[in-house]
């Protein structure tokens, strides 16, 4: 018999809604709430021996304490499988499900599973650590979520081979697996292209990561009086790269004074970037960071002025998270320095 412990929040535990979200974790024998449906879907081979119920606010406000309390409760039942949720699009519930699943997996070394709507922040945080079945955004999707979670969790606990996300219904975990294919890559690529041109369905073999889109701000009305700054991910730095910005996967950015500088020359500036042929940027760094042209525009009165500092980093392999962190820091400086617009150049 496969012993299962199930985790749910105070709402599904029948304790209450938001007003009860601060309750501490408790464990009850047998099934509670969605566990009833899970029990049916898991079938005869598995038994939900206990259900942990914890308030969403309590868990998220006392992350470490709640995790270790729950872990102790779960350990007592010596489960073979741990299931949390489904949390649908409930953010704090999703984060709680993901955190506790990861903790159980790491410390008890048993299979864990949860279910969430792909936009649940818990899905983004934990999809790499565990299998999360993709669900609808609300509890009305319970009927579809439960059988899918039960099916995949039984496969996990029995050590069966887990298929790709599209077959098993879990949120892609970013894992690539080598497999043998009958047809070589070039032929498959052409087949995909032909299908695309014909408007037929096709499945990419190399899914692009999801990047959020940034809505452009309204255009500058009064360019003549606007202070413009230059920012680049093209790695332009003063000669010698004084802050040692890495050639790839940069962990920092630089801020350099260009007061009085009208032209970047081979003697004064260079690129730290390791992802493109640096010859032309080293010969004339204005090609990447156009200080010379900006000075012309300044002189001609087309722009109000060029900001005294430029900000620079290396975009080569640098994570989106790091880039966001850099920008959130220096954007505040730019705004407080009265900069109205930024020209962002890449390579």
């Amino acid at each position, binding site marked *: 018999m496969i012993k299962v412990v199930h985790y749910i929040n105070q709402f599904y535990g*029948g304790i209450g809604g938001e007003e009860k979200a601060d309750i501490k974790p408790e464990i009850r024998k047998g099934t509670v709430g969605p566990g009833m449906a899970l029990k049916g879907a898991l079938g005869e081979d598995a038994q939900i021996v206990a259900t942990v119920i914890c308030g969403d606010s309590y868990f998220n406000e006392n992350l470490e304490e709640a995790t270790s309390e729950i872990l102790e409760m779960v350990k007592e039942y010596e489960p073979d499988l741990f299931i949390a949720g489904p949390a649908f699009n409930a953010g704090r519930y999703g984060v709680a499900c993901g955190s506790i699943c990861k903790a159980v997996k790491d410390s008890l070394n048993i299979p864990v599973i949860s279910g969430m709507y792909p936009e649940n922040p818990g899905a983004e945080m934990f999809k790499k650590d565990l299998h999360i079945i993709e669900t609808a955004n609300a509890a009305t999707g319970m009927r579809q979520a439960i059988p899918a979670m039960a099916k995949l969790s039984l496969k996990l606990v029995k050590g069966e081979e887990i298929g790709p996300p599209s077959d098993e219904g879990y949120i892609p975990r970013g894992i690539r697996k080598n497999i043998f294919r009958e047809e070589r890559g070039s032929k498959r690529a052409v087949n995909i292209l032909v299908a695309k041109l014909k408007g037929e369905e096709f499945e990419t073999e190399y899914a692009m990561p999801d990047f959020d889109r940034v809505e452009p701000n309204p255009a500058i009305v009064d360019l003549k009086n606007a202070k413009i700054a230059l920012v680049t991910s093209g790695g332009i730095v003063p000669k010698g790269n004084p802050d040692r910005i890495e050639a790839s996967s940069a962990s920092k950015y630089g801020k350099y004074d260009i007061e009085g500088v009208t032209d970047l020359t081979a003697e004064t500036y260079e690129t730290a970037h390791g992802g493109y042929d640096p010859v032309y940027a080293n010969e004339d760094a204005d090609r990447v960071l156009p200080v010379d042209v900006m000075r012309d525009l300044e002189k001609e009165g087309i722009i109000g002025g060029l900001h005294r500092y430029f900000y620079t980093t290396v975009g080569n392999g640098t994570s989106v998270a790091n880039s966001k962190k850099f920008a959130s820091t220096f954007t505040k400086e730019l705004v407080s320095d009265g900069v109205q617009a930024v020209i962002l150049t890449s390579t």
Partner: protein
Amino acid sequence: MDLENQKRVLELSEKHGKENVVVVLGASEAESAGLAAETVTAGDPTYAGPLAGVSLGLGVYHIFELKDEVDADVYDEQCGMMEMVLDIDAIGAEVKSIRDQYSKF
């Protein structure tokens, strides 16, 4: 269906007997009407409320299905407007399908 209403339905059916209770819905969409109908017959499909795992099998109708049972003036005043703007056929079909499957009374 919210937890309070589930509790009320459960209490009323215990008090008066399941065969003596009929639930009349006023939901404005087929999906939500169907979910409410399922809750009071097969049990709460979201497994969150007092009717999770409780199959009451109550009689359940949408008010649009009961037009002929209601005083025409009252119906017109209370439901006439919504009858014009909502998809009453879809709502009726959804509730009927749930009723046919799970209602025991």
